[in-house]
């Protein structure tokens, strides 16, 4: 047995024991306790530097742990934004003080993080954001609104990007900050989405005073920091997909069709074959990409391919399930009804399908970029968000 096999089987044994008495739906204190134990056992921040609370091991150990963890439902979702996006951003751009102050509690689940980029007027075009941060002595004063913020209610800290110079073009006058989510000027309101539930929040800032040492990276250099953070998001959304539940999977639908005696219908068979072809090709692509990662080939912008295909598959499979199962699948709060209501979220969150296609075109295929009319115009002279039509337009 290699050292890595041993590492993996030790991790598996630890996880088996620690998850055995977890309730099916752990609450926040239980999730925090689990996270602390996971950290103390050495399985969080495996590749992060020891100086900041990590273990300083290689990507091989990280993968070995992920392989072991794939068999267990871990209550770590609430820490995902911190571990997958905020932490790596601080690790590469944060000051020494920031890294020492924030990373260890983040890894141990003692402090929860959220990410605040999108705004009602700045969706696909995040760089047109309007939330302002104005310098006042050794503080910045933040006013504005963010939207689609996951775990904002539980979060202790958030990474915020705000406009710090409206007199320069839009990408140049943005700064990233660490914001204390418990500040009285921060108002978090749950956003009811189309599923009828609240998975995201709106966050309102009114005169929130942020210490100057909370700037992440350079003042007015926040755009490149945000791009780094978002790349982590795209990879994690697409690549993690094999673990998420698929109520409208080929296997589930085949069983459903068989139980109802529908397999004899050529139309049903054709729909199922179409679903199989998409699903199998997607799964094989993810498997191939993860083999490439293991072989040292980084997916880079190709993560967008996986994300786009997952979004398409999610929409198509729920739709197709409904065509086979008919009206019964919409009655009550069944899995297909829920899948149909959830599906658009996958094609919108983390970048819309159109943005994914732009990324693939520009960064994977190297196609010429679209002329950006707003590139060299000061932000304050731009039209942003949703605007009334003017005469002659």
């Amino acid at each position: 047995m290699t050292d890595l096999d041993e590492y993996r089987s030790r991790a598996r044994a630890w996880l088996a024991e620690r998850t055995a008495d977890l309730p099916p739906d752990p609450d926040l204190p239980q999730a925090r306790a689990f996270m602390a134990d996971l950290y103390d056992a050495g399985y969080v921040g495996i590749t992060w530097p020891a100086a900041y609370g990590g273990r300083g091991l290689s990507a091989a150990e990280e993968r070995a742990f992920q392989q072991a963890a794939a068999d267990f439902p871990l209550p770590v979702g609430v820490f995902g934004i911190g571990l997958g996006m905020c932490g790596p951003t601080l690790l590469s751009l944060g000051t020494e003080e920031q890294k020492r102050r924030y990373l260890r509690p983040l890894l141990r689940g003692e402090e929860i993080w959220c990410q605040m980029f999108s705004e009602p007027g700045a969706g696909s075009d995040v760089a047109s954001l309007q939330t302002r941060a104005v310098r006042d002595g050794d503080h910045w004063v933040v006013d504005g609104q963010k939207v689609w913020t996951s775990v904002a209610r539980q979060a202790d800290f958030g990474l915020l990007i705000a406009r710090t110079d409206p007199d320069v073009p839009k990408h140049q006058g943005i700064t990233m900050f660490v914001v204390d989510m418990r500040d009285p000027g921060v108002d978090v309101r749950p956003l009811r989405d189309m599923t009828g539930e609240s998975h995201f929040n709106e966050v309102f800032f009114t005169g929130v005073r942020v210490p100057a040492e909370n700037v992440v990276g350079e003042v007015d250099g926040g755009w490149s920091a945000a791009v780094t953070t978002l790349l982590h998001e795209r990879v994690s959304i697409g690549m993690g997909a094999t673990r998420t539940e698929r109520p409208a999977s080929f296997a589930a639908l085949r069983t459903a069709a068989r139980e109802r005696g529908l397999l004899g219908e050529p139309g049903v068979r054709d729909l199922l074959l179409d679903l199989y072809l998409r699903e199998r090709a997607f799964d094989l692509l993810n498997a191939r990409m993860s083999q490439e990662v293991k072989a040292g080939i980084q997916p880079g912008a190709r993560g967008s391919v996986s994300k786009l295909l997952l979004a398409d598959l999610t929409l198509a499979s729920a739709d197709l399930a409904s065509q086979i199962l008919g009206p019964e699948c919409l009655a009550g709060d069944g899995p297909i009804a829920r899948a149909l209501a959830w599906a658009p979220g996958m094609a919108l969150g983390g970048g819309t399908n159109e943005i994914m296609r732009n990324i693939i075109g520009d960064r994977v295929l190297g196609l010429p970029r679209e002329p950006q009319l707003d590139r060299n115009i000061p932000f304050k002279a731009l039209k942003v968000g949703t605007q009334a039509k003017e005469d002659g337009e």
Partner: protein
Amino acid sequence: MRLIPTEEQRELAATVRSFLADRVPMARVREVAGSDEPYDRTAWARLSSELGLAGLAVPEEHGGSGAGFGEVAAVLEELGAALAPVPYFSAVVAASLLVALDAKDLLPDVASGETVAVLAAPEEALPAGRLLDRGEWVLEGMVERVPDATAAGLLLVVASTGTDRRGVFAVAPDAPGLAVTPLTSFDLTRPQARVELGGVPARLLGPSDAGAVIDRTADVARVLLAAEQLGGLRRCLDVIVEYAKLRVQFGRYVGSFQGVKHKLADMHCVLEQAESVVRYAVWAADEAPDELPEAAALAASFLGRAYFQVARDHLLLHGGIGFTWEHDAHLYYKRAKADELMLGAPRTHRARLATALGLI
């Protein structure tokens, strides 16, 4: 399950790619297509003997190199990308059947490329094998649309040997009663011919009931064709992406328009999936015989559509020039369509897939 090529496979592909760029450019492809030559004999000689590719998947004791379908697939991708007018696909499928039948005396010449063996294996309406009193077989019947039959130095014919029994027969190209008639092929780069067997003397290879071996060879053929299709698909996308970076209309490179860019992005997504499907199917052909029937039906169903759609859109995105005879786009478009249908109508691949998945 291995889904990424080995270092050796990448090097092999690079060798073949540079040979083809040098020796079989599109001008040469068109020259062969417009001539009466069934294939480019010079290129074939160099590929098969100098580069030793004809016997790639033939065991060393029979004169081959003892490599696997992974290596053969790497070569086929490059040949498919270049539309190279050589009967490599036909020859390696025939070679794998001869290996499965343990045809020791025929293999050395096939492995060296000296003899181009071509398989005529219709799905239905098989020629009939008749055993004469002297213990000799003769074949009676016709096989339509056999790819590369005019290139064959050895024909392998699948014929019925009794009720629900099939055997493989070796037929010499100059055998009495054999007629090989070239057909007008939609795909100019892979000629097809009608094979007529009027009491042709033939030699039975292996058992007279070789159905399982024949079916497995058919699956191998589907997987290998998919690898060749993948190469063509990738070339189509590369070519149109390059053009979209050069062609200017409305004062902009056309690749900067989202109407074009998004189409190309979707074509790239098809390529990524197609490559994954092919790698899996090739792995199954080498390593996982139990998975091969499903993998082969998956590869045939996916790649047939994928290559044709990408070849079609690559032609369309060229604009008017893509509809001209001089431009190469139509050669790929026709190859992609012919490939999609070559081993049976797409519905037959889907029906086999449905069976493998327990939907029938």
